[in-house]
């Protein structure tokens, strides 16, 4: 949190002193000796120090050096599902537009939306839509959130590579995660206990999975994850445990599934075909567990933020596929 606020404070300083920002503190001090007086030196040192604390990338600063007057910045925080995609977009966009600096941070959809409500971020990434409470909290702060669907994601059900179970219906998955089914034998597998893995409750994936899979999309349902569910702090934690443990079952965004886990084919119900998640099956709607991914801005975006979002929605869609997500059609 400190780092985020610090970085925000730093940015105006950088933009007003673009030519003074050095590649390294030492070179900078050298320049200053021939340059202006001691006050500027102190200010500059503060910037250089803040810069080194922040691990500013010298490459980007080098591009700005002497060529452009003002740096435009975009703060982009939120969903861990989206973070890799958002980073790829940011990098590609900064290559095309060196005058724009985009910093991307993860932390969860809730974290991003909370930051947007508090006005500390330009774009919030979310893997779920905003809750009514969040929208009213934003209104209370005088902010009208604007929603952009930027890509689609499918949630893959993953098990250990040696697990013989390869097909499950949504209802079976629901029964497994509520603790009704506790042994793999009950769904046609080996005699092994089932170990349930989930993301932490601050993850948009958690909420989506609960509402659409465990509760089968029924808003009156009061079903919950079994208390035996292991809540993992990261996608990587789920991947690691599924790769190691033949008892485990987990869920995660398709973008985070590596080749080492086994992906289970899912059917909406027993009358429909079992479908593996892929770009094609998500786009034609046959894979039952997929969702849109969002970016939110505080009010209608203007200027460089609008330009960036436009790029994301059009040219940026090319990178979506490369990261295992599903582009908009």
């Amino acid at each position, binding site marked *: 949190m400190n780092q985020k606020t610090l970085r925000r404070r730093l940015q105006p300083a950088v933009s007003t002193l673009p030519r003074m920002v050095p590649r390294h503190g030492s070179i900078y001090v050298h320049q200053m000796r021939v340059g202006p007086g001691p006050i500027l030196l102190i200010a500059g040192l503060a910037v250089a120090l803040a810069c080194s604390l922040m691990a500013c990338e010298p490459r980007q600063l080098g591009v700005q050096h002497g060529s452009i007057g003002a740096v435009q910045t975009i703060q982009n925080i939120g969903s861990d599902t989206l973070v890799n995609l958002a980073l790829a977009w940011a990098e590609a966009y900064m290559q095309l537009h060196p005058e724009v600096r985009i910093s991307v941070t993860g*932390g*969860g959809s*809730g*974290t991003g939306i*909370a930051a947007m409500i508090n006005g500390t971020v330009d774009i919030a990434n979310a893997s779920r839509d905003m809750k009514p*409470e*969040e929208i009213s*909290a934003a209104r209370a702060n005088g902010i009208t959130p604007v929603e952009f669907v930027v890509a689609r994601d499918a949630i893959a059900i993953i098990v250990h590579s040696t697990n013989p179970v390869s097909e499950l219906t949504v209802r079976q998955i629901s029964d497994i995660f509520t603790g009704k089914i506790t042994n793999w034998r009950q769904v046609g597998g080996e005699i*092994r*206990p*089932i*170990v349930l893995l989930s993301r*932490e*409750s*601050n993850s948009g994936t958690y*909420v989506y999975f609960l509402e659409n899979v465990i509760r089968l999309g029924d808003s009156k349902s009061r079903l*919950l*994850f079994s*208390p*035996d*569910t*292991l*809540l*993992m*702090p990261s996608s990587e*934690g789920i991947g*690691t*445990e599924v790769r*190691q*443990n033949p*008892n*485990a079952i987990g869920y995660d965004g398709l973008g985070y599934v590596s080749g080492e886990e086994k992906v289970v084919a899912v059917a909406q119900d027993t009358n429909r075909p079992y479908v593996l998640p892929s770009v094609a099956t998500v786009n034609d709607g046959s894979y039952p567990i997929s969702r849109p991914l969002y970016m939110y801005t505080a009010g209608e975006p203007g200027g460089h933020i609008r330009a960036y979002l436009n790029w994301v929605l059009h040219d940026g869609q090319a990178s979506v596929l490369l990261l295992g997500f599903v582009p908009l059609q």
Partner: protein
Amino acid sequence: MSHTGKTTASRPHWTEFFVESLIRVLGFSTIGFVLLIFVFLLREGLPIFFEVAPGNLFGALWYPTFNLYGTLPLILGSALVTVMAIAIALPLGVATAVFVREVAPHWTRELLKPMIEVLAGIPSVVLGFFGMILVAPIVREFLGVPTGLTAFSGALLLAYMALPTIISVAEDALDAVPKSYRDAGLAMGATQWQTIWRIVVPAARSGIVTAVMLGMGRAIGETMAVMMVTGNAGRMPLSLDSLFRPVRTMTATIAAEMGEVARDSTHYHALFGIGVILFILTFLINLAAATSIFKKRRKGGLR
């Protein structure tokens, strides 16, 4: 002190006065900060005790997204992991301290002591990663449990983290036992083992108790490693096999959920409420450690 008084009387030593008051202010500010933190914790955490019915608050279900704030599984989870960690670390720590202080030759001792200090410097996230990748699969395969992310794996890592504290404090306690005790023991015809076990360790007992208490304080407050290896399942650890099942601790809950909550929501207050409980527990443990030193001193015994 009297010397300072004299110089101040004869000549106003303003630098001395300045330094003295600076040190005094700094000293008192430590107490002030602890008090302020506690007041802040209470301010943010107390509302939960009014917002949520006690039956819910001390119930068995922790689903904050659905207004179920049962803290009992978290409190019991922390207790289970901590007690188990100390049960592992106590014999190892005391044995190491005895070896370093009483048995090891001088050069070994000089080599071991800094290495034990290094143990304390390993970041907990590194240990957590190590636990997740290496310890958890070993626990699962050797014990045949459904998953290796268990209270036991957490206790192993915590024991490892509490060890440096326990070893250094216990070693200091052994160090404070006068040489005459050992000489007397040996002169009476006791073997070295008998001297250590019957005389030196009992004489250092209160220091060893302090060591354990401090280790426990370290263990109960540890977050990152615990969050990575205990599995964080909010189940009640009441069955006999609970040690080998996942648990959710208070610290991991705060760390995992604090980033998400809206300020001043019930969930936010609930997390601070857990913070209050944790603070009080740690305080009681440290108090117990302090009294055990104090009691012994009053009796005129050894530290």
